[in-house]
C-alpha cells in the first residue's frame, strides 16, 4: 500500500512538471519538446490532467457498481462502505473534470457552458449521483439504506459508461470525439499523440488511478472506524 502512495505522488508530480514545463514548438526536434497544435497552443496541456481525472471518475463509479453487486450477494456492511466511498470519489473527480473542462471551454469555445452533448451528459451523470447521496441521507443508517443504495449504485454505474462513452459519440457536438468532429475519433483512442506526450499522458493516467486507490483506502478506513465506534465495538 505504501508503494502505491509514493508511486502516485511521484507520477503525478512528474506529470505536473512535464505537462506544463515542456515547451511546445511547431516542429519538435528532441524528446523534450511537444508539437504545437495550431489553434490549441498551450491549452492542449489540459489533456494531461482533464482526461485522467475523468477516467478516474468513471473508475470510481464502476468500482461502486461492483461493490454494490457484491453487497447484494454477501450482505456484508463492509461492501456497502466500499461502494459508498468509491461513489463519493467518483463524484468528486467528476466535478473536477467538469470544472477543468468548463475552464478549458471558456478559453477555446468562448463560454463556460455550451450544452454540448458531452457536457450535458456529464451534468446528468452528476445529477444521478447527487440523487444517490440524497437517497442515502433520506434513509436511516442501516441495512435498508445499504440495500437500496446498492441497487441504485448498480443502476447509476450502468448508466455512467453510457453517458460518458456512448452518448457523446452518437450526437454531434463541440467536444473532441463527437460524431461530426473533423479530426475523427478522440486523439487518445487513435493515439495521434507523439511518443513523449503519450508517455506523460499514461503516467498521469496511472498516477491518478493510484491516487484514487489511496484516497479510497483512506476513506474506507475512516468509515470502518466510524461504524465500529457506532457499534461500540472497541
Amino acid at each position, binding site marked *: 500500500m505504501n508503494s502505491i*502512495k509514493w508511486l502516485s505522488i511521484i507520477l503525478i*508530480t512528474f506529470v505536473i512538471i512535464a505537462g*506544463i514545463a515542456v515547451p511546445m514548438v511547431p516542429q519538435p526536434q528532441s524528446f523534450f519538446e511537444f508539437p504545437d497544435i495550431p489553434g490549441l497552443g498551450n491549452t492542449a496541456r489540459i489533456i494531461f490532467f482533464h482526461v485522467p481525472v475523468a477516467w478516474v471518475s468513471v473508475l470510481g463509479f464502476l468500482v461502486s457498481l461492483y461493490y454494490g453487486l457484491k453487497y447484494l450477494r454477501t450482505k456484508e456492511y463492509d461492501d456497502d462502505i466500499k461502494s459508498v466511498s468509491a461513489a463519493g470519489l467518483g463524484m468528486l473527480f467528476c466535478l473536477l473534470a467538469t470544472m477543468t473542462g468548463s475552464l478549458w471551454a471558456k478559453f477555446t469555445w468562448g463560454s463556460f457552458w455550451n450544452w454540448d452533448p458531452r457536457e450535458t451528459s456529464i451534468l446528468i451523470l452528476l445529477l444521478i449521483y447527487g440523487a444517490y447521496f440524497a437517497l442515502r441521507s433520506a434513509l436511516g443508517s442501516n441495512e435498508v439504506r445499504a440495500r437500496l443504495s446498492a441497487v441504485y449504485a448498480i443502476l447509476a454505474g450502468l448508466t455512467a459508461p453510457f453517458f460518458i462513452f456512448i452518448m457523446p459519440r452518437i450526437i454531434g457536438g463541440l467536444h473532441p470525439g463527437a460524431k461530426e468532429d473533423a479530426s475523427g475519433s478522440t486523439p487518445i483512442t487513435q493515439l495521434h499523440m507523439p511518443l513523449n506526450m503519450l508517455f506523460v499522458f499514461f503516467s498521469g493516467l496511472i498516477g491518478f488511478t493510484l491516487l484514487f486507490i489511496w484516497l479510497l483506502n483512506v476513506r474506507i478506513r475512516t468509515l470502518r*472506524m466510524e461504524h465500529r465506534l457506532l457499534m461500540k465495538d472497541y
Partner: protein
Amino acid sequence: MYEFLGQNQLYIVLFVILIIWIGIVLYLIRLDKKIGRLEKQLGKD
C-alpha cells in the same frame, strides 16, 4: 529571475500548481498517519 518568469508565464502556473499539489499531498500524508494511529488504538481494545 523575475525577467525569466515575466517572459515564460507558464512557469508561474507550474509553480502555483506544484505548491497546491504538494500542500494536498502533505495533508493526505498527515491524514493517513492519523488514521493509522486511531486504528491501532481501536485495534488494541
